[in-house]
């Protein structure tokens, strides 16, 4: 624990130098989307399933900011620590071991994503897109879980990556589908059945589905809720295990 907190402290010190830029981009981007879609598209649609469109897309926008933030930290950023700056090598000459590194990377990215996501919620509340503030607070642990799942999958990609080019595929084939086909903007049943099935596999779908009823102050189907949360937890565990095994092979063999 002492070593993981030392590693988190390192991330914090680096973040503190650049926090304005990093927060602004991770925050402003979804805020712009929220504004453009919420008021732009929303003005053409009366309601979606009985709620106004701005409120409807808030959980998706928070999830989107978490996706971008946690993915970026654990892919491009982590890869440059791993391969370019050789930070992992320097760490492994100390009592710090690989699991400390992997867990701190994931934890830090998730915490940072949560802060960014909470920022988006604040902006949404300011625009009038959050119906129940107390429910919004309840979604924070879920968004933390969302950060953990995206971060662990991002780090898994990093443990497999052979170069920076790899991450452009990740962006196109992983980040964009998670953003577009998971119910951020509209229900996934509008898509052909195969896209619907892809959406069921993508973590952002489950994050949005788990948080949307809460944020919209609607009744929560506990069975479905458990499935969403359970799926995210399992994905996190599997991705973390793969990342650990791959890094282990690449660093020590």
């Amino acid at each position: 624990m002492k070593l993981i907190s030392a590693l988190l402290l390192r991330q914090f010190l680096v973040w503190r130098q650049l926090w304005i830029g990093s927060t602004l981009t991770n925050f402003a981007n979804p805020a712009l989307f929220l504004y453009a879609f919420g008021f732009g598209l929303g003005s053409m649609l009366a309601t979606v399933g009985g709620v106004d469109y701005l409120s409807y897309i808030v959980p998706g926008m928070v999830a989107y900011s978490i996706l971008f933030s946690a993915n970026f930290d654990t892919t491009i950023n982590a890869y440059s620590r791993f391969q370019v700056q050789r930070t992992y090598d320097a760490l492994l000459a100390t009592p710090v071991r690989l699991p400390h590194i992997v867990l701190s990377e994931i934890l830090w990215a998730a915490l940072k994503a949560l802060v960014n996501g909470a920022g988006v919620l604040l902006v949404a509340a300011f625009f009038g897109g959050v119906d129940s503030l107390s429910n919004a607070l309840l979604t924070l642990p879920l968004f933390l879980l969302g950060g953990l799942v995206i971060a662990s999958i991002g780090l898994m990609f990093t443990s497999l990556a052979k170069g920076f080019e790899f991450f452009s595929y990740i962006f196109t084939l992983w980040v964009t589908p998670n953003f577009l086909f998971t119910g951020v903007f509209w229900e996934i049943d509008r898509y052909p059945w195969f896209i619907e099935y892809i959406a069921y596999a993508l973590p952002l779908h489950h994050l949005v589905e788990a948080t949307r009823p809460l944020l919209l102050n609607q009744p929560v189907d506990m069975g479905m809720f458990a499935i969403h949360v359970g799926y995210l937890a399992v994905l996190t565990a599997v991705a973390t295990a793969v990342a650990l095994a791959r890094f282990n092979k690449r660093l020590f063999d």
Partner: protein
Amino acid sequence: MTLIQATGLTKTYRTTNAVKGIDFTIEAGGCVGLLGPNGAGKTTTMKMLVGQTTITDGELTLFDVPVSKLSADERGRLGLVSQDNNLDPDLTVEQNLQLYGRYYGLSRDEVAPRVEALLDFVQLKEKRNDSVRALSGGMQRRLVIARALIADPELVILDEPTTGLDPQARVLIWQRVLELKKQGKTLLLTTHYMDEAQRLCDRIIVIDGGEILDDGTPKELIKRHVPTQVYEVNKPLPKALEDDLSSFEADDLGDSVQVYVNDPKQLFEKLDHPETQVRLHRPANLEDVFLRLTGRNLREGA
């Protein structure tokens, strides 16, 4: 007290045998040099010791504990001055030291006085708030040394500490290394600079192709492998020497021949004008030993 013991130590990367079953023991105190050409297996041996790579076969103990089973505290008794400058480029000089201390599990209060002492030791006090990126190569290397000392280790491993540095920066590093020796730390150093090895090491292990070729004090190695005197004779060689060259130990350097003898008379009998024919005379040194043991072939890669 035995600090390091290797028995049949082996490391195989996918297709190459980097280290082929070596045995050695390192006792506490003094400086031991691990000498070898590029690709000899020096860095791999270091990495196994430090825990940056696993062992394929054999045993390697540190403080009588197999390296794979070292506790965090035991790891703290070892400091690594790594070959590449893997300082944290996102942090300042001071933060690099502070955080490295935290990675050893030291508290903020424990680290603070050590950072001061070490910045002083490596003469980087004025640079404390500078980004690591702004430091010269020599300064970065000094900071890597300070970083390795943050947990006050009893064993310090230096992997090619002066490679790529200018002469002034090298001298500064040597001073610091000798100072560490004086403080009673055990040093394990790799280098391919013979002058550095001769200057700093009490004992030298010569390694090549993943195997140990010899082991001893610099003096012992010189005595064992080369005659005491070296004469460099200009080409073309005098006829008498040319005809009898095979009875001497000699190396062709291109426009001259380096002849090794214990008794100079033996050589001078073959020279008619020694004052013009001999270009250089010097006592044999570690470089001669190294070249005899590891051959004159150029190393590719590594």
